[in-house]
């Protein structure tokens, strides 16, 4: 008979660790169970070649909530954040490039070479993205109110949001409602005339989503990306020293310091229920772990359709949960390079390569890459976002060839469900397609490759438990937003089984390395357990 836990957390992804740490700090006896041998989930670092470590999946942590870094004293627990002055470098095969710097004025000056209209519009656009993002950040902090049987707290939250909304001022407030459902291609076109600039910004409106820049609602994705961080028009670019895995370790250290127990290699096979209420979990080993609260860091669909017994969930809820959309479209290519690749468009300025290198030559080019995914084909010319984190964080390369670098590449579109063949057959072909895109802006990069790793959407599913290979657990689109993420009526981190909670990316405010869902969920779990204790 194991000792009774207050809370057991399924999975040790970054959100689960955030939740666990907050629960521990609230004095709750908390146990984290992770299937893999390492914590962090998609926040991971891999040694690709001897002495050459690369961000395995996510490569930047710029969206991490500052309040989490503070509350959990992550810096004391070993987290160092590195922010290069360049945010985005977007080279085109023709040798031209768009560069977005942290410094808005510097960015505008750089744009002037191509279009003075764009240069003049940039600051205003940046301001608007920040203003609208500010509102979305406040929205993200909130637990979606219960609009069906509102209590005092819900009413106050509603009023607070109403005030923040009015605080935007008439113009921005109207603009927000107008642009959220818009196609990001239209949104950037309202401000800019240069196709390459439009694409460099619009990319964040479709990243990780089964959307093209012409898809409605992609503007909401763009604005959410900059919400709660210093993103603005360019988007945030911040590295964790030692790679995203270091963030996971800092979070785990903070959790342990708060008294949380973390067990790896412990696979949860189901959530134990009794009379419709969660009582704990059962491990594959058969071991039973009791807890007053079960908090799932995995996605809502899998939690409700695979971990909880169908009778408890009920047919209607099972149907709804089974329809949560998880169409992964992203693959990951990691490279160990013998030397820094040469990007002619960088004009020899070494600073430009330190941020996110986005190859999305134009709005229509992105849309065409998306078209392939609609018909179940990987794109021949995927959109890529690459980073060379070792340029900013030398600690990643301690061995391998002199001057070696590691490169991390997010490649889209790679639909998880292929109409022909399987991803195991397609893996290398897609890796080659990604290299082809990189060659077009960095000739000769192929010759520098010491080691290459290609992670397909299926790999993300198999190795990281990301259902559908979806890094965000569920689409970031407006049909899975705020009051209805993951499911309408169950956005308050409490799943439709009493005592079962959701703290992962399929909860509001959604995916990405933000810790947002985990922080919000912890608040609700603590409130419930305290209530039930008293």
């Amino acid at each position, binding site marked *: 008979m194991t000792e009774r836990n207050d809370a057991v957390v399924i999975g040790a992804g970054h959100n689960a660790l955030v939740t666990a740490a907050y629960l521990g700090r609230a004095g709750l006896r908390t146990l984290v169970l992770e299937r893999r041998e390492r914590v962090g989930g998609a926040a991971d670092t891999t040694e690709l070649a001897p002495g050459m470590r690369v961000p395995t999946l996510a490569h930047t942590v710029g969206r991490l909530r500052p309040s989490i870094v503070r509350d959990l004293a992550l810096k004391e627990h070993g987290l160092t954040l590195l922010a290069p002055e360049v945010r985005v470098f977007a080279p085109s095969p023709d040798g031209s490039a768009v560069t977005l710097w942290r410094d808005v004025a510097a960015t505008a000056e750089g744009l002037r070479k191509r279009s003075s209209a764009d240069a003049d519009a940039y600051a205003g656009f940046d301001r608007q993205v920040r203003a609208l993002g500010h509102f979305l950040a406040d929205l993200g902090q909130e637990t979606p109110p219960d*609009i*069906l049987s509102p209590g005092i707290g819900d009413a106050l939250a509603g009023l607070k949001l109403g005030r923040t909304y*009015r605080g935007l001022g*008439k*113009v921005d*407030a*109207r*603009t927000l*409602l*107008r*642009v*959220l*459902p*818009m196609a990001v291609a*239209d949104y950037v076109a*309202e401000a800019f005339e240069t196709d390459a600039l439009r694409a460099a910004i619009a990319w964040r409106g479709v990243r990780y989503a089964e*959307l093209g820049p*012409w*898809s*409605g*609602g992609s503007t909401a994705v763009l604005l959410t990306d900059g919400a709660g961080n210093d993103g603005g028009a360019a988007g945030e670019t911040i590295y964790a020293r030692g790679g995203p895995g270091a963030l996971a370790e800092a979070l785990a250290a903070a959790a342990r310091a708060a008294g949380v127990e973390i067990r790896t290699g412990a696979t949860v096979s189901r959530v134990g229920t009794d009379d419709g209420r969660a009582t704990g979990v059962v491990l594959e080993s058969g071991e039973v772990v009791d807890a007053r609260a079960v908090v799932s860091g995995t996605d809502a669909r899998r939690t409700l359709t695979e971990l909880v017994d169908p009778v408890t969930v009920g047919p*209607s809820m099972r*149907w*709804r949960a089974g*329809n949560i*959309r998880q169409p992964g479209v992203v693959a990951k290519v990691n490279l160990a390079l013998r030397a820094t690749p040469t990007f002619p468009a960088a004009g020899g300025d070494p600073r430009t390569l330190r941020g996110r290198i986005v190859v999305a030559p134009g709005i*229509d080019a992105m*849309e065409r890459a998306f*078209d392939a995914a*609609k*018909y179940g084909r990987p794109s021949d010319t995927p959109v890529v976002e690459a980073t060379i984190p070792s340029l900013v964080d030398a600690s990643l390369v301690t061995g391998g060839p002199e001057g070696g670098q590691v490169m991390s590449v997010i490649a889209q579109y790679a639909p998880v469900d292929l109409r022909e063949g399987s991803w195991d057959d397609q893996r290398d072909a897609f890796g080659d397609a990604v290299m082809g895109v990189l060659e077009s802006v960095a000739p000769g990069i192929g010759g520098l490759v010491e080691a290459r790793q290609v992670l397909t959407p299926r790999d993300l599913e198999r190795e990281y438990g990301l259902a559908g290979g979806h890094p965000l657990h569920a689409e970031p*689109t*407006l*049909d899975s*937003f705020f*009051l*209805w993420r993951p*499911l*309408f*009526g169950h956005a308050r981190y409490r799943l439709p089984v009493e005592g079962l909670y959701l703290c992962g990316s399929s909860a509001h405010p959604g995916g990405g390395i933000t810790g947002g869902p985990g922080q919000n969920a912890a608040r609700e779990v603590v409130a419930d357990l305290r209530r039930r204790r008293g």
Partner: protein
Amino acid sequence: MAERYDAVIIGGGHNGLVSAAYLARAGMKTLVLESRHVLGGAAVTEEIVPGFRFSAFSYVVSLLRPEIIRELRLPQHGLDILPLDGTFTPLDGDYLWRVNDHGRTMRELRRWNPSDAEAYEEYGQLMVEMAKFIKPILGIVPPDPTGRDPREFLPLAGLARAFQQLPERQQAVFVQLMTMSASAFLDQWFETDPLKATMSASGIIGTYLGVKSPGTAYVLLHHYMGEIDGAFRAWGIPKGGTGGISLAIASAARSLGAEIRLEAPVARITTVGDRATGVVLESGEEIEAAAVLASTDVRRTFLQLLEPGTLDPDFEAEVKRFKFRGSSGKVNLAVDRLPDFLCLPGQGEHLRGAISFSPSIDYMERAYDDAKYGRFSQRPYIDMIIPTLVDPTMAPPGKHVISCFVQYAPYKLDPSLGTWDDQREAFGDAVIETIAERAPDIRDIIIGRQVHTPLDIERITGLTEGNIFQGELSLEQLFFSRPVPGYARFRTPIRDLWLCGSSTHPGGGIMGANGRLAAMELLRARGRKAA
């Protein structure tokens, strides 16, 4: 000496005529000015081939508000809507045929997929519930979301209460309808590809979106709104073509005292300071009015009919942002006998309803892909109707007219294709080829053919960029954002200038709700009873 009216209405389309009827009914001295020789705007019947009469543009009706039919006594003024029974989707060697006879449709769907047949029933009931819930919004004047006048929000409170009373699953489904793509929404119920494709079609009609584009699920509802209005089931066609509706409304308006002038194109709206005082015709004639109602679309009204510089620049910028993007064309055919479909030969009932060229979701999406890059669809979605089977008066005995609504035909063509004047016949040919794949004899039976590209629609009806809804029905252009956020209440920044066309809430389609709501708002503002 200029005449003076209480209200002058620019444009004799169905909405302009509805506004006129309601204003006249309230005792206002009302004048309608139509630039063409026929009334109806896009709801007109014209004889293009001698002896053959066509609903030149819009061709079916399901949304005409029952309160308008009632309040204006349209049946007494000649309105007669004949039901169209069913939707026939021809395929290679097979077909999908749904009719109003529930039992037959169930048998047909079971033939395809028993679980889809079950789902279809559940889905139908659910959508009717959804439509019942959302229908009141067609009668609501949208508030300014940033406004502080609680009275503006009152009608929404009723809707909110109604929402709270829905079962959770229906609430969830409603949210999905407002946010999802038609294809993703239907995927939750159905597997049969031609069924999903044909149903999804009603989600993209008149939009520059594909069936996989978020925001298209909402339009699926309209179909069901028509269905529960009781006056007639699903889609119908007006006797004498869609022009028949316009003529009935016009007759009602005249009988209520409204004056209607044809071939009286308005050149300009006259203003003094920030208030509208009347209009000037192209003939130079000046007409004074206490209120000017424009049933023309928002771009034409503000950027072409007003003196430049009259508008506040921010508002003008919003108007310029409003998206039109006509995406459809119309091909009207005069034929000397009925077409023969390979998958179901003969001249049976399957020709009496809508004939939908929508074999698969991929087919629909590929048609959209062409348009995204500035080309008309090589294999378009076609909604074909043969009105003469329900209304033989439209053609000489034994002969028929065929109406083909065609999507996609983007207003802005890729420059390499030249202009629509260069592409008109090629577009018409693509339509005929698409039909010929399923009914090869179509080529032999055509006596006359009329091809309306988006450019033609714009030239003839004045609809900017040929958008049949006076502006795209995408989420960002609906309700309090239609046509411009903060100006969704039919008023404009110019005092005494009002909008009453489809650019306003609740959008396009032969609905009349815009014209009625605008008239009601004006009467309320003037402190007059709606009679």
